[in-house]
């Protein structure tokens, strides 16, 4: 097990290097480069900018700059915001809990719903339920998330007045879990829509694949009931591609969270990103890009380790 984990970590390192190279490249692609904020400020003279260039090390060869930047990232120094000069990493981490709450609740809902629908569809293949579920999944994947969100706000917040239309807490109610729950329902629904559709599609095809295998025919020949075959034999095998999906889905989850947070004024990372975009806060934008990419790499690593834990073939084999 340990050799497998080490090998898998070793594979993640080139990815981290690649991600940092692209991130560094993007930073220099930004209009005005890393000094944009100073060149736009009329009170700063050309000599000042020259001095800042030297202080920041921007007069040095590009590979030296990259190494400095990368080692800074590694030791937690992600630069400072243009406005306020706060450490970028602090600003991002501050917003992380809100996003994790939203992503976690949407993902749990999607997994429970998607797994049930997909499994049932695979077991009762070509039934009316299966046809409705697979068609419904394509519909769900075709809705523009923000449009679905606007419609949800119109129906449940504006017309029915059952739920708040945005935010995380009512004013003066900060930290009240019940209030949080009420605010969480609509964004969770919206973010979970696409995820549920994906999970049901993947679960269906993962189960269909497993249900056709020889060992399930053997289990049937042994006289095991359908329940036993499904839970003891089919489920652990179908779980593998589904755990892999968890890792693959992470970038999508962040993208979805960005749109959902914008519609519902949810104070998470997605919202921070959109705000940073309007304020041209390049350090935050770059920090967020790097943060999400690293999050995705680590997520995939954990998913692979989990797969190796349930399947000895993976950790022994290639």
């Amino acid at each position: 097990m340990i050799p497998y984990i080490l090998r898998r970590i070793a594979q993640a390192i080139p990815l981290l290097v690649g991600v940092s190279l692209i991130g560094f490249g993007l930073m220099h692609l930004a209009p005005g480069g890393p000094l944009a904020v100073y060149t736009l400020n009329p009170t700063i003279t050309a000599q000042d900018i020259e001095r800042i260039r030297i202080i920041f090390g921007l007069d040095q060869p590009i590979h030296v700059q990259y190494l400095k930047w990368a080692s800074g990232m590694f030791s937690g120094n992600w630069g400072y915001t243009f406005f306020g000069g706060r450490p970028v990493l602090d600003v991002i981490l501050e917003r992380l809990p809100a996003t994790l709450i939203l992503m976690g609740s949407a993902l749990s809902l999607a997994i429970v719903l998607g797994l049930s629908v997909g499994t049932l569809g695979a077991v009762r293949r070509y039934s009316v339920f299966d046809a409705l579920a697979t068609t419904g999944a394509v519909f769900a994947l075709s809705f523009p998330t923000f449009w679905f969100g606007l419609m949800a706000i119109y129906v449940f917040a504006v017309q029915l007045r059952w739920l708040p239309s945005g935010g995380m807490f009512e004013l003066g109610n900060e930290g009240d879990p019940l209030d949080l729950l009420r605010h969480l329902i609509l964004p969770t629904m919206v973010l979970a829509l696409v995820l549920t559709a994906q999970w049901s599609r993947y679960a269906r095809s993962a189960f269909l694949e497993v249900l056709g295998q020889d060992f399930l025919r053997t289990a049937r020949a042994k006289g095991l009931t359908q329940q036993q075959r499904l839970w003891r034999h089919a489920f652990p095998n179908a779980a593998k591609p589904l755990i892999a999906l968890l890792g693959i889905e992470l970038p999508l989850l962040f993208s979805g969270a960005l749109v959902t947070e914008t519609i519902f004024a949810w104070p998470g990372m997605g919202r921070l990103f959109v705000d940073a975009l309007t304020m041209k806060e390049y350090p935050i934008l770059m920090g967020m890009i790097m943060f999400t990419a690293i999050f995705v790499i680590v997520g995939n690593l954990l998913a692979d380790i989990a797969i190796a834990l349930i399947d000895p073939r993976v950790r022994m084999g290639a």
Partner: protein
Amino acid sequence: MTAALEASPAQRVMARFARHRLALWGGLAVMLLCAAALFAPIVAPHDPVALDTSRRFLAPFQDWRFVLGTDELGRDTLSRLLHGGRISLTVGLVAMATTILTGAVIGILAGYLGGIADTLLMRFVDTMLCFPQVFLLLVVAAFIPPTLLSISLIIGLTSWMEVARIVRAEILHLKEQDFVTAARALGASPFRIMAVELAPNALAPILVAATLKVASAVLIESYISYLGYGVQPPLASWGNMLTNAQGYFDTLPWLAILPGAMITITVLGFNFLGDGLRDALDPRLRMDP
């Protein structure tokens, strides 16, 4: 059974496609939308940017001259939807072409050359896949002034990775076939083998991916237009029509319902069409194995 065996491959593909009823509907929707977009200047009853504040916020079916009503500046919604469709579909198609071209070139190179080139290219694919697409897209879109072409290119250049993987897998399988060995024995250059022998044979999965990519490009365009970094007003796109509508949608929901419905129909049409093509062209790639 014998009839099926006698049918030509093309006939069999057609028969499999026709059995997929939703794909037929998807295809019909796509054709109608493309026709509407193509002939928008002729079909549209009004100029999509003509303002007239004396007729603001007409509801649909209230005035026969403005069948689907008007927006906050008195512009005809139907005309804006038609012209917006032109924009959305153009972005969708150009982005798809960029995606397919980039993905196919990288996939074919990686699959055929193998070795270090394969490793490097596929590591690049893996790296690009680590970034959430909307984040990457918005940053680049914020850096360069948005034009139709730049938006399409950005969408295309951030979504080619799956295509590269699909094409590479196909090439790995194809390059072991006898016709490639024969071409090599005849002295064909690697470029000729890749462009003339391999690429046409990988067309089926590429066609399927292309259809599905139009759907996702239309969806993504609407996201970035909605967030204000896409197609700029006064040019109408379905995404920025929704952004406009957001300000009034608690009292005038139809302003938001109509463009959203157009996006959904378009994306749904291309998705069903793509699913049907996949079933018809390449039974191996089917969603249910």
